[in-house]
């Protein structure tokens, strides 16, 4: 029985991969992402946090790219290349975890708001709306400033400000799913709230959730960079803090384009890779988009 299930799962995964491979932009995004993640994971094998230490910078101050420092140096003579490499760890970690947090909150509250009609749903919905109209960047700034600047607080600050749109999305899908007759059938056979939401609603919203998570990671990375640029950071080198540094030290007026351009391009590339992946996933998983693509 279990081997049968395994074979079937393998076949389903194979079909998914065949469909995904047809989305060339998605494959490009996936390759970039895989490269970024692998590089971030293997970084400790080659370098350590020492590359971000201001006293151990060996190059000249704001030196242009040279064979010794291929992407130039910053204001303390540290190699921009090595700092980008090390900083990708913080940027990606915050991006993934904040997106995960935001997805979990958004899914739980979205399904609850859609499933429980009456005052419970109404209250959850009003809370969602309230968070939705708060300017999320300002809220995240305030939260991070109050909680102090560690990696965990930045993740929490981004997570608790970015869930409302997910909740809205999931709620809408939950309402659509719960209008189906098989929910009534399930109720008739004695199913409770937990059974209906986990066995019927969740599998139906899962594809949507997956696609929206990838997009959420992209926006979390941007938010992290923005927060760091605005001066609220985890005190660890990330792409956002590097941009902040380039601004603080007048890299633009000093003509040190490498100091501004490199972290900026890294952010744009990774975010775009996530977006490409998310769009491709949406196309493959959403039956409506899928039929249109095949027609």
């Amino acid at each position: 029985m279990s081997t049968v299930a395994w074979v079937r799962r393998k076949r389903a995964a194979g079909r998914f991969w065949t469909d995904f491979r047809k989305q060339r932009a998605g494959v490009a995004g996936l390759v970039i992402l895989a490269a970024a993640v692998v590089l971030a994971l293997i970084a400790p094998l080659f370098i350590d946090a020492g590359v971000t230490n201001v006293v151990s910078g060996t190059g000249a101050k704001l030196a242009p790219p040279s064979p010794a420092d291929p992407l130039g140096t910053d204001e303390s003579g540290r190699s921009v290349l090595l700092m980008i490499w090390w900083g990708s760890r913080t940027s990606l970690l915050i991006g993934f975890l904040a997106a995960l947090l935001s997805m979990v909150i958004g899914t739980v509250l979205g399904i609850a708001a859609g499933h429980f009609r009456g005052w419970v749903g109404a209250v959850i919905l009003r809370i969602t709306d309230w968070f939705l109209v708060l300017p999320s960047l300002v809220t995240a700034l305030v939260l991070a400033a109050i909680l102090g600047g560690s990696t965990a607080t930045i993740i929490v600050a981004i997570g608790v400000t970015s869930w409302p749109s997910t909740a809205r999305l999931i709620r809408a899908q939950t309402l659509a799913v719960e209008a189906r007759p098989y929910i009534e059938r399930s109720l008739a056979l004695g199913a409770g709230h937990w059974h209906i939401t986990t066995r019927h609603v969740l599998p139906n919203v899962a594809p949507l959730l997956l696609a929206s998570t990838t997009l959420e990671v992209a926006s979390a990375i941007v938010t992290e960079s923005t927060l760091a640029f605005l001066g609220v950071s985890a005190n660890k080198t990330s792409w956002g803090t590097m941009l902040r540094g380039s601004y603080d030290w007048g890299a633009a007026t000093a003509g040190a384009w490498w100091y501004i351009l490199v972290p900026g391009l890294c952010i744009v590339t990774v975010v775009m890779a996530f977006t490409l992946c998310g769009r491709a996933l949406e196309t493959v998983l959403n039956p409506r988009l899928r039929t249109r693509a095949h027609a």
Partner: protein
Amino acid sequence: MLELDELTVKYRIAGGEVPAVRGVSLSVPAGEALGLAGESGSGKSSVALALLRLLPRSADVGGRVLLDGEDVLSMKWGRLRAVRWSSASIVFQGAQHGLNPVRRIGDQIAEPLLVHKLASGAVADRRVQELLSQVGLPAWRARSYPHELSGGQRQRVMIAMALACEPQLIIADEPTTALDLMVQAQVLTLIRRLIADHGISLLMISHDLSVLADVCDRLAVMYAGRLVEVGPSSGEFRHPYSQALAAAFPTVGDPASRLAPRGLAGDPPDPQQLPGGCAFHPRCPVALETCATSDVQLRASGAGRTAACVLVGE
């Protein structure tokens, strides 16, 4: 087994109430099959849903529904959930929508077993295979998705699901609507065999008298939220509405019947503005003057038969 005592259902809408069921008293003894017939809007589906309290919140249900002597309408939520499916299960109309498209057939048949904690894991798998074979589907179908099945097969799955907890009563709400005639005959044979084998009571709801007469021992006919006639399915109808409903079926192979007028002129009454007296009198071909003013209750009209019409008597 099942007893309805003056069951009423009213839907609250903006600016008033719509009485959908206006006092229905019925009983289905253990092991008996009762057919409930009526036009669209006669309230027959409201009756079916009221039995397990599945109506939307906007519905007010009155009277009593006794399931094995216990009043469903006054049950606590937990008890109601326990009773749903284990005492009475429903075969819904439109099987294609009653199954979750993203879950396997086997998992869905096992759903009532899991919900009622009757079985899980390998035991539940075995029970699913057993149920599938009872409704004439091969065991490997448990791994299929609903879209891989034909309409008749899906309806068989719904029936297997209804049998899962070995209920004493099955409520079948238009179980064969939207199936073609041959498949319909197969499904009806299956239902007939299963209720006979398991000694299950059946309340079958349909607009199609021929389907009901095929399966049920007794027939009840509803009009405008009330019963107009209850009697054995073998006998002749006495109420003019039941007669018109029965006569509305074409006789296949008889060209003369095409030219003979049949059916009823006019539409079923608006439940918000029911005519006075007998609700059927505006469409009744044999109405008397008194019908417009005096309402008639069900009265004895032959062997085991009651009808609500001034013209019938012993």
